[in-house]
């Protein structure tokens, strides 16, 4: 009831006067009647509406007013009654109170102040409208901020680097060139490039690529590639020959005709699987006369197969019984100095190295050269590690073990990658007071076949001759 009356009162009262004095404030005065539509004026004490009120005060702008007079309470009451919402009222001294009020209500408040005999002065302005006003004067600042944001966005949407990952046979530069022709190159805008299209095009255009993927990671792009395994080009007619001497352990013939069998001793260069397939023997005639057998010719193929053989390696190595050995004692001295033309100034460390024997590492650093001017100044760091030298005496067993180790190390370099060591035998061949010499024999099981091309003869009479070779 009171509420309705209040509404009526607010509506009637200010309208009459607003027409007389301040038409610009008219909208503000009628505000309480539409409290629902103007949340910043709604008088609900909850935190939520408080937040909305603060938000609207900020959006519409507010003033901090210093009200001086005998009865500032009257000013507050009259303002409230006319629908001007005030907040953060603080008394700073007996005759002054600070009040925050909406910026738009200032004309009305001045009028109220005149009526209630107080002086109103603006202490501060706040809120978005005033900030905008200030910024309008400093448009270069605003422009700079906008330019900065645009530039940041532009530079971060550029492609800076393109990496190619996963190439083995292919040249990464070639892949990069192909990608560039599809639009993926450093300097292009990121959103102009469709990674899937580029990957598709790479797969289509480069036959060596089985799969390609384009991965965008910020300004860095990596092209991941999986290469196609291309089968080795056919050699044409070829034999498989032995690379090493050995005894055949097992054979698997895939193409061609075997020339040796398991257990055979072969020499290096011997044909193991021949690429010449001889014609089958003519069929036996059984009584009735047969039509003449078709004339077969030997076929020439690329021989294929696996031939594994036992191969022996032999190696001699020796180890001394007495040896002069150097060993680091663990004591280290470092000297830091500046070397001028021919003077040396020691910054840190002793003036001389205090060891009899030492291992020296010197690290020199010069000042960066600038335009052909080199300053004759060097920073030198010397690191000296003390060394102890002594005569090491080995027992017979120790020397033997070392000799075997050495022999094995030598052999390890000779054995091919796929070789399996099946037996190892060492024999002392040379032993005296000073040395122990060892002959190491190692038996391995390894593949010894190697394809070797040959020219198939045009005339068939040649074929037989070659074959028997």
């Amino acid at each position: 009831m009171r509420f309705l009356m209040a509404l009526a009162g607010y509506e009637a009262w200010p309208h009459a006067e607003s027409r007389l004095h301040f038409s610009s404030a008219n909208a503000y005065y009628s505000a309480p009647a539409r409290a629902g539509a103007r949340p910043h004026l709604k008088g609900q004490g909850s935190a939520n509406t408080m937040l909305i009120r603060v938000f609207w005060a900020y959006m519409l702008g507010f003033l901090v007013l210093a009200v001086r007079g005998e009865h500032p309470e009257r000013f507050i009451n009259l303002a409230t009654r006319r629908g001007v919402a005030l907040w953060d009222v603080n008394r700073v001294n007996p005759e002054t109170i600070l009040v925050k009020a909406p910026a738009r209500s200032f004309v009305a408040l001045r009028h109220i102040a005149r009526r209630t005999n107080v002086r109103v002065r603006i202490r501060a302005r706040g809120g978005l409208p005033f900030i905008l006003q200030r910024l309008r004067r400093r448009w270069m600042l605003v422009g700079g901020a906008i330019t900065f944001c645009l530039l940041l966005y532009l530079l971060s949407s550029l492609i800076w680097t393109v990496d190619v990952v996963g190439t083995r046979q292919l040249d990464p530069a070639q892949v990069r060139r192909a990608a560039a022709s599809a639009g993926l190159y450093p300097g292009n805008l990121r959103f102009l490039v469709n990674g899937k299209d580029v990957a598709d095009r790479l797969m289509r255009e480069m036959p060596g690529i089985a799969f390609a993927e384009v991965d965008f990671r910020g300004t860095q792009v990596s092209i991941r590639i999986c290469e196609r395994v291309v089968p080795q080009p056919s050699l044409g007619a070829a034999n498989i020959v032995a690379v090493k001497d050995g005894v055949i352990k097992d054979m698997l013939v895939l193409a061609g005709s075997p020339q040796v069998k398991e257990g055979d001793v072969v020499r290096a260069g011997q044909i193991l699987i021949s690429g010449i397939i001889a014609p089958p023997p003519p069929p036996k005639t059984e009584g009735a006369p047969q039509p003449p057998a078709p004339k077969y010719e030997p076929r020439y193929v690329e021989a294929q197969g696996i031939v594994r053989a036992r191969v022996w390696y032999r190696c001699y190595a020796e180890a001394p019984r007495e040896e002069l050995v150097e060993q680091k004692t663990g004591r280290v001295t470092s000297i830091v100095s500046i070397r001028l033309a021919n003077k040396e100034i020691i910054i840190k460390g002793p003036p001389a190295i205090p060891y009899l024997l030492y291992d020296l590492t010197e690290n020199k650093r010069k000042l960066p050269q600038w335009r052909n001017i080199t300053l004759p100044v060097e920073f030198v760091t010397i690191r000296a590690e003390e060394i102890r030298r002594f005569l090491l005496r080995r027992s017979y067993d120790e020397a033997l073990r070392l000799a075997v180790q050495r022999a094995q190390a030598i052999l390890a370099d000779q054995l091919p990658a796929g070789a399996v060591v099946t037996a190892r035998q060492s024999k002392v061949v040379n032993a005296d007071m000073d040395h122990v010499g060892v002959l190491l024999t190692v038996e391995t099981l390894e593949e010894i076949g190697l394809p070797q091309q040959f020219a198939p003869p045009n005339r068939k009479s040649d074929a037989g001759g070659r074959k028997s070779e």
Partner: protein
Amino acid sequence: MGFVVPREMKSLEYFLAHFLELPKELVMGLPRITVLGDIQMIVENHRGIIEYTTERVRIGTGIGELRVTGTGLALRTIFPEEIAVDGKIRSIDLVE
């Protein structure tokens, strides 16, 4: 604006407010005072400020004058329907 309920109407209004479940502070012109500990007081349905200093705030209501004493008192909000007083509150008196 002032709306004093006549004595003979009071029982009827009270009955109506009860019966129709209307908010009593609106129907009967009573202030609704919400106190949060000793740091805040919110008065709805007030009739304006009579006095304001940092030690004392007097607020007019339909049933008399509300006196708040304390230290560092400030009026957080003043709206036609609501006044919020912040600060260290020591006493709240209702003076008819």
